[in-house]
């Protein structure tokens, strides 16, 4: 394969490339935040009126620890009862699997094309 001579990149063009990367990065983190799609919040499904340690499902030994940490049943209520919701749809799961597979397929495919070029320039076609 013929030797490939890369063009020399000017200062302005280098700067633009950096800006593009930074914008994409910041975007990837903040766009889900702005759209409010981020995170898995815990919530309390069934609140307890006038909580006591027993009503919160705590044995005396566990209650003693909470008291040592400075909680009473009312202030520990949300902390103890909040739970994650692990329900999900299979549609969403399949979408995720498809996206991950597509991504790895894409980079492995392109990498292979570029890699063959590198090897043939480095070692020559034999």
């Amino acid at each position: 394969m013929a030797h490939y001579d890369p063009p020399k990149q000017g200062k302005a063009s280098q700067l633009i490339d950096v800006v593009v990367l930074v914008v994409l990065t910041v975007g990837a983190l903040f766009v889900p935040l702005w759209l409010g799609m981020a995170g898995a919040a815990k919530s309390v499904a069934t609140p307890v009126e006038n909580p006591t340690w027993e009503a919160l499902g705590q044995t005396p030994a566990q209650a003693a620890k909470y008291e040592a940490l400075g909680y009473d049943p009312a202030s520990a209520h949300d902390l103890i009862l909040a739970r994650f919701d692990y329900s999900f749809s299979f549609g969403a799961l399949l979408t995720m699997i498809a996206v991950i597979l597509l991504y790895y397929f894409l980079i492995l495919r392109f990498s292979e094309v570029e890699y063959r070029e590198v090897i043939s320039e480095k070692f020559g076609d034999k």
Partner: protein
Amino acid sequence: MTDVDITSKTMDGMGPHGTKVGLLRVLGPAHVWALGVGIVLVGEYMGWNFAVGKGGAYAALIACWFAGILYTCVAMIDSEVTSTVASAGGQYTQAKHIVGPLMAFNVGLYLVFAYTMLEAANAITAGYLFSVVATMSGHEAALDQRPFIILVIMFLAWLNYRGVLATLTFNLVITAIAFVAILVLFLATSGVVGGGIMEHAALFEGHEMPYGWIGVLAAMHFGLWYYLGIEGTTQAAEEVRSPARALPFGTLAGIMTLLIAATLTWYVCSGALPWEFLGDGVNGSVAPLFDTARLSGSNALIWLLGIGTLFATLASANGCINDASRAWFAMGRDKYLPGWFGAVHPKYRTPYRAIVFLVPIALIFALGAPLDQVITFSILSGLLGYTFMPLNIIMFRKKWPLNSIKRGYEHPFHPLPAITLLTLCAVTFFAVFLGYGTQLVAMIGFYIVVSLWFHFWRYRFVNRGAQFTMPWPKPQGY
């Protein structure tokens, strides 16, 4: 390009490497250990306990050990490849030689993001610690955490800028102190030497598996946090005196240290703190080891673990700056990123432009984003990197079988570790999906977009054959 001009002060051929300026080879295996463990140990002081919240105390222990297996595979695979491909950039350079340029570009970005996000998370935690200390010492108004967050990042960047030996020696000292603090807490509270406060049976009663087995799966997400970053040892490859020996030794010693530290941490914290409190890292136990020390009633332990927590965050942020800048520098040197970043400071011999450039990026995330988002971004980048490793080792063994090149270290039972690692990564993807599916897709969307940008635009500036720098024979099958 003229290499030598005897009339010039700087290019007269009399420099340390002729006229060439490269990174300095000054580190030993202890520094490698400090870099690897230093980055990770903060995970024992904060963050791992989210796994308890995801599935209960037992789930966190199972996740701790399965993640331990995952990282043992990572360390073994990494040790073999890096003892052969010893170069700044670590996994990035491995990917470039073994899989191909686009994969290498992606891996380089995983590294930079995983470490820069982790650095931001550490700075946030350090700022929080200062505010806790301020409140405890009677400061009335809420402390402005921003100057402390900025100071942590600025000081550590400055240290990194000034030279790698001082940076990692500093890391060695504070990491060792933070690790000893965990050991002391274990000895003092577990009852091994008398006077324990452990009540595992009483605390677990009625709360063994609050979410059932799906909670165990979900806990894998934060199970990674016990060890995340140990693979960063490879970044030091160009600065270690004897990479083929020091890197495998430092990395494997590091993962053993962490397995011990993680198990001890789980033991003392779950034996002292109720799981609902322990598992809520935002409203409950932000720093679980510190909270355990508080319950012990000993002021000396409170101080020791408070200092340990601060040192662990500093050591981690410090190692992250070191690793992220090496990866960014290596990509600049190959023109994967603008070549301007591939510069080495002639006096301090550090990739100074990469270090300075990443400071504002870290600040944006430390000051502008919530902690769990930053952690998730870091974990996701790490996870994508671990998924790459099994592909990497399988291709490595196929293209260069064992006898075709000299390896400093050969990992046993191939391909079992690779398959185990791939399976555990799949489980962890599912765990992340349960909590943060949208981020996962947004993040992979980001990597797809930058991959296209690289393939169709950026790659034109890269030398084709010259980027393959290892003195290896032609790979088999090409």
